[in-house]
């Protein structure tokens, strides 16, 4: 592509030939309104608000063109703010105003172009007929679900939707310059703190911020390209050319010597506990949502805000939501007391809110924890010994205003209390991942009644599992805080290293062996071994056990009808002797 020289408002500039004028002008920092322009669609002037005055060559007559779709040619002279250009834009704007209802976009432009008392042509229809929605649906998405329709008094939308064709991608609403098109909420609960997923809810996103490798991935089931075949905007914008749609999913098989299970936990979903109104009242949020709000890179930029954007005047922190609760999890989640205190500290630091802690027992068990608790007491946090019983709006009539009341029994003063607050934080339980049992089965380790993985021994082998070479680290083994998880992780790593360094495995002395002189080759044992340790030697007409594969379960020993298989350390003689010994 060759460069061409043009002149904009008297300034010479070099641009690539074929560039649209609007881009060239904007490159120069001149702002021209162009609401019907979307960079990933072919320009199609409909609003004409981007009009500029041009003249080609020294002698030619100047004319008004729409800059969005006018390709530059050498020697072009452009005037963006000439009398003629402004007048053309004002005329275009007046034309739009004469067809639509007031909108911020056009209102602001009217003010910019000094149109006093704009004569709005319609009461309701905010569509400026730019066709962006239809074009994006047709050209980019490929669903072809939208078309113009006649506006009536009853139905003030100007766009007709074919629900059969619509894939609910939301591209039309995204490109609409006046917000005429709105996506309706699919769920009852408006998305308040939408950062719960730790990333935009787009079809292409980072799984979570600390993900390794930290690269976004495309969720094909939501991606327009994978649904309809169009779009590909992401690959267009990617400066590194890193997006390939034809990259197939790959299953990698990695040979390993040891495995450390660190599958973590999932957050307890408090929605079923209706009494706390999670999902019903927007200012009742879970601990992780509050944590996200405090993240400087989060949805509120680290500010503690209510749904309406105001700062809360009072916050209640409810402990033990889903834990220490016979109906949900009996165990203590261990981390909540301390993070709840941290929350109180953050709230005190960032806001002037009154903070209430509603706890069953304050479990400040770790190093420095009790001291932190006392510091919080000194900071003026209200601690109430009593589990929050219910969260209700201040008044059902005025529930829209957002005020909440937390009901509880203060067991230290023996009184029922109602505390008015703006925000309620639920300290939800840590629970085992819903797929923990299925994953565990793959590794031949089991889960306990509470769903956590079972360690080989609660005291003597808290990191190992019943399967040799598989170790546990972190919360997947049971609720624990960061220092404990780090300690266990280090221990697991050390255990794994110990095996890897040695490069050889110490075999258990217990294994089964076939006494060849008694084996008749009936092959009953052949199908019994889950580890395929038993093979049949056709030549000798005997079966053979590979002791390296044998895990000493003894199933073949019991199954051997001639007693030719001997289970070392669990021989028939030993077991019979035990049975007879303890019974007589």
């Amino acid at each position, binding site marked *: 592509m060759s460069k061409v020289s043009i002149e904009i408002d008297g300034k010479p500039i070099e641009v690539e030939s074929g560039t649209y004028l609007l881009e060239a002008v904007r490159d120069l920092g001149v702002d021209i309104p162009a609401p019907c322009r979307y960079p990933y669609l072919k320009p199609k002037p409909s609003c004409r608000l981007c009009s500029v005055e041009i003249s080609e060559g020294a002698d030619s007559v100047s004319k008004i063109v729409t800059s969005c779709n006018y390709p530059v040619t050498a020697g072009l002279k452009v005037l963006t703010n000439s009398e003629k250009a402004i007048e053309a834009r004002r005329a275009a704007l007046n034309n739009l105003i004469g067809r639509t209802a007031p909108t911020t976009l056009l209102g602001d432009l009217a003010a910019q172009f000094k149109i006093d008392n704009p004569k709005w042509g319609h009461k309701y229809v905010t569509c400026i007929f730019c066709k962006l929605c239809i074009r994006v649906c047709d050209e980019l998405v490929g669903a072809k679900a939208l078309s113009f329709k006649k506006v009536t008094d009853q139905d003030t939308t100007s766009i007709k939707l074919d629900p059969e064709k619509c894939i609910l991608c939301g591209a039309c609403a995204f490109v609409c310059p006046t917000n005429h098109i709105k996506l309706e909420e699919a769920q009852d609960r408006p998305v308040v703190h939408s950062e719960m997923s730790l990333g935009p809810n787009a079809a292409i996103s980072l799984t979570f911020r600390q993900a390794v490798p930290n690269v976004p991935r495309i969720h094909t089931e939501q991606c327009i390209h994978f649904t309809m075949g169009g779009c590909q905007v992401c690959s267009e914008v990617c400066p590194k050319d890193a997006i390939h749609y034809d990259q197939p999913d790959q299953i990698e098989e990695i040979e390993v010597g040891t495995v450390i299970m660190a599958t973590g936990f999932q957050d307890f979903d408090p929605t079923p506990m209706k009494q706390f109104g999670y999902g019903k009242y927007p200012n009742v949020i879970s601990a992780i949502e509050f944590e996200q709000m405090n993240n400087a890179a989060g949805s509120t930029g680290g500010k503690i805000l209510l749904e309406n954007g105001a700062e809360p005047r009072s916050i209640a922190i409810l402990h033990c939501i889903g834990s220490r609760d016979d109906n949900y999890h009996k165990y203590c989640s261990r981390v909540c007391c301390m993070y709840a205190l941290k929350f109180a500290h953050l709230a005190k630091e960032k806001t002037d809110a009154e903070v209430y802690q509603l706890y069953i027992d304050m479990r400040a068990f770790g190093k420095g924890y009790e001291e932190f608790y006392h510091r919080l007491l000194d900071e003026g946090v209200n601690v109430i010994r009593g589990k929050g019983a219910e969260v209700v709006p201040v008044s059902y009539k005025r529930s829209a205003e957002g005020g909440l009341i937390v009901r509880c029994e203060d067991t230290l003063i023996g009184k029922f209390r109602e505390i008015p607050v703006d925000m309620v934080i639920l300290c939800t339980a840590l629970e085992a991942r819903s797929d923990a049992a299925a994953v565990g*089965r793959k590794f*031949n380790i*089991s*889960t*306990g*009644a*509470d769903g956590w993985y*079972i360690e080989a021994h*609660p005291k003597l082998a808290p990191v190992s599992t*019943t*399967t040799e070479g598989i170790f546990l680290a972190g919360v997947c083994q049971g609720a624990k805080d960061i220092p404990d998880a780090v300690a266990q992780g280090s221990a697991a790593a050390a255990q794994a290293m110990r095996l890897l360094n040695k490069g050889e495995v110490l075999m258990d002395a*217990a294994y089964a062996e076939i006494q060849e002189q008694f084996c008749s080759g009936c092959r009953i044992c052949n199908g*019994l071994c*889950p580890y395929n340790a038993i093979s049949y030697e056709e030549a000798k007409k005997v079966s053979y056990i590979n002791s390296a594969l044998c*895990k*000493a*379960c*003894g*199933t073949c*020993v*019991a*199954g051997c009808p001639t007693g030719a298989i001997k*289970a070392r350390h*669990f021989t*028939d003689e030993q*077991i*019979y002797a*035990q*049975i*007879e010994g*303890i*019974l*007589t």
Partner: protein
Amino acid sequence: MSFEPKILGILCNWCSYTGADLAGTARLKYPANLMSVRVMCSGRVDPGFIFDAFKAGADGVLICGCHPGDCHYVEGNYKCLRRIPMTKTLLQGFGIDPNRLRLEWVSASEGLRFQQVVTEFTEQIRSLGPLQLKEWGYTPHQSEAGHPEPQPALNQ
């Protein structure tokens, strides 16, 4: 004195023995009638062990393994599951109430369940009464003092 049954428990190493251990560490009490033998897997249980236990004076035999699908050795417990019904058929043939033998699944986390199973089974065996074996206890020297089984009085 009330009848205190002798019950042999054959427990698998990974689930049930650990479950029994848990019952212990949790200070759950279960009848002392159960005497346990540890095997690596319920698949190791040979019906001969069961017959031998009855021969040696057990009034009941309880076999515990991992829940189906949770076997440490993938499917050893299924082998046990297949052997026990046939063993019960043979027990019936030997004139021993098959209810004196029970197979239960107890996982490593089910200390409470272990307690309940043992308590319940002990009560069941208690209600079945002592198992008195006829042939055992005979020695040929008794023949000097007369045969142990005189001809039963048969009607004419």
